[in-house]
């Protein structure tokens, strides 16, 4: 079992003919993801990487039965692309695009939910269930199929921790990058809920960072509802207040959103918190989580 994506995922790529879109479509195909369609207005009828391209999401879904979309459309046009995917009732929409104005995300966030779709991102690396499907931009080769689930606001920091887990014989069940923007479609809590219910997942790694209170909310949820062992890592202990640290959402406002608050909330919820990404595997060991291999 995996969550959200599986061998049954039939993926549509919005913005497939762009530079990023084409590069990552090739990578996903090589990983074994079932990419069934691309969408680029004006390029309908063509094929790229043996995948048919359509003018609209509606056409693509009608002809290919796509059940998930990944979006590589540039920021000014990405909100419309998300709407288009929702309008075609795609149950899973993964928005990789970075730089979407946050006020565009306010109505979209509520719209996606009201229509019953699930949005991952924006400004995220996507998600992967190793050995089954990769719907994202992460390097497939650092992953091993296994039993540790990861949820993270970051990209490369997640790869770092994945690599540390794989090197220490902990494989991954599903890795979800929820995105670094102030408003993202899926929260830590929703990912935790999926992982708690997933029989393949034996333990959970939560990778947070400064800004907002998603980690504190997650900690409260862990205390009440999560029975599986949790290891956390929070980036930004040395970040100054009031400055945006790369991600639009990574900013300490006044005295709220600090790493210290998040660390102590996770610890109070019974999670082990790593000081360095490389400590994550040994903390899993301390919590009694057996290696996969």
């Amino acid at each position, binding site marked *: 079992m995996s969550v959200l994506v599986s061998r049954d995922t039939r993926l549509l790529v919005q913005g497939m003919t762009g530079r990023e879109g084409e590069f990552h479509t090739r990578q996903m195909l090589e990983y074994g993801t079932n990419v069934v369609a691309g969408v680029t207005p004006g390029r309908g009828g063509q094929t790229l990487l043996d995948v048919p391209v359509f003018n609209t999401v509606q056409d693509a879904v009608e002809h290919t039965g796509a059940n998930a979309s990944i979006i590589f459309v540039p920021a000014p046009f990405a909100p419309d692309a998300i709407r288009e995917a929702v309008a075609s009732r795609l149950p899973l929409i993964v928005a990789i695009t970075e730089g979407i104005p946050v*006020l565009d995300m306010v109505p979209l966030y509520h719209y996606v939910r009201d229509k019953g779709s699930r949005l991952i991102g924006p400004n995220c690396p996507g998600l992967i269930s190793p050995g089954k499907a990769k719907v994202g931009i992460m390097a497939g080769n650092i992953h091993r199929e296994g039993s540790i689930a990861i949820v993270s606001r970051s990209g490369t920091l997640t790869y770092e921790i994945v690599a540390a887990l794989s090197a220490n014989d902990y494989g991954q069940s599903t890795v979800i990058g929820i995105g670094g923007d102030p408003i993202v479609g899926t929260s830590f809590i929703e990912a935790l809920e999926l992982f708690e219910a997933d029989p393949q997942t034996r333990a959970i790694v939560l990778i947070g960072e400064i800004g907002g209170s998603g980690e504190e909310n997650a900690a409260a949820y862990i205390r009440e509802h999560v029975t599986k062992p949790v290891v956390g890592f929070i*980036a930004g202990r*040395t970040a100054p207040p009031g400055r945006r*640290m790369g991600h639009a959402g990574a900013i300490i406002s006044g005295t709220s959103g600090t790493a210290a608050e998040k660390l102590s909330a996770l610890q109070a919820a019974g999670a082990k918190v790593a000081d*360095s990404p490389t400590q994550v595997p040994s903390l899993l060991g301390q919590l009694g989580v057996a290696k996969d291999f």
Partner: protein
Amino acid sequence: MNLHEYQAKEFLRQNGVPIPAGDVASTPEQVRQIAHQIGQPVVVKAQVLTGGRGKAGGVKLAQNPDEAERVARQILGMDIRGHVVHKVLVTNAAEIAREIYLGAILDRETKSIVLMTSAEGGVEIEIVARDHPDKILRRSIDPYLGYGDYQGRELGYALGLNAAQVRAFSKIAGALHKTLIENDATLLEINPLAVTTSGELYGLDAKMVVDDNALFRHSKFEDLRDLEAEDPFERQAREEGISYVKLDGTIGCVVNGAGLAMATMDILKLYGGSPANFLDVGGGARAERVTLALQLILSDPKVRAVFFNIFGGITRCDEVARGIVEAIHQIGGTKVPIVVRLVGVNESEGRQILLGAGLKAYTGLDEAAKAAVQAAQSTLPDESSVGSHGGAA
């Protein structure tokens, strides 16, 4: 991007928020002229992008143009929390009966715009939120329908305003919300919103933060950007699309990815070092970007070592290595020790290229971070300024 008070007030004024008459000036003579035109007591206010201006002496009342010129001389050039005052706002001094707080912010919890008001005006809202959270009244703005006048009325009556003032307040709240939406702001505050002794409402101070992600559709903000208030290196980085924040430490960091860049800073601290900056060089770590990153970092005289932390993933390490070597070549070499940690596709080729340039590449993150800390500690300030053949005098 933060706007100055006078800029935020202008946007509010355009949407119908009553703002006292006034203008911005950069010389004491201009201040005298504006005060003369207003013809009444004025307030001279430092325009700096930081709080605490009043306490620092950056806001002063003047009864006449002479006095206005005199206080302007004191305020212009003043340093407020590291911000030099280049401009002052000269504005009509209001007779204040009471001060209200009114703000609209993007609320990450509810994923909506929230209107906030408090009878405790003139005080920073964070302080009210901490000491008297019950004194802040909130109304969530519907993401589809927007602001409703009834919301302003509810808040106005709750504040104890009279019927005429409630009408004015509700209009101001609507204009505030409209101004926030039109300008892609994530925060817009009128604090204080004053009730004058004659019972009218005026916005006396304003704060506005615009979403950097939305700047592409508001070209006007480029002209409003206060280049004097920005660190020159940060400006250069921004123009090149590199995320860079200057810090106080001694180890310059070049990292791909924002989360990993933050974690890298934290790890340096964990092992006894101190980061000189946050820097996300972006995906691919192309040579021209690496060059600029290296230039930015080495222009900071406090930097005693540079730490490259590149987790390649899909990125090819040989390309990154070539970028690093080319960057060092471009800047004509450096005496500051460079520690590289490189992981990803074509790792061994990358390491060979770096070795050819005399650089050792690490694989382990902790091991590399410790090496960077050690390199920074063993480079004493004197060593870097004296050549290797020094001491012959």
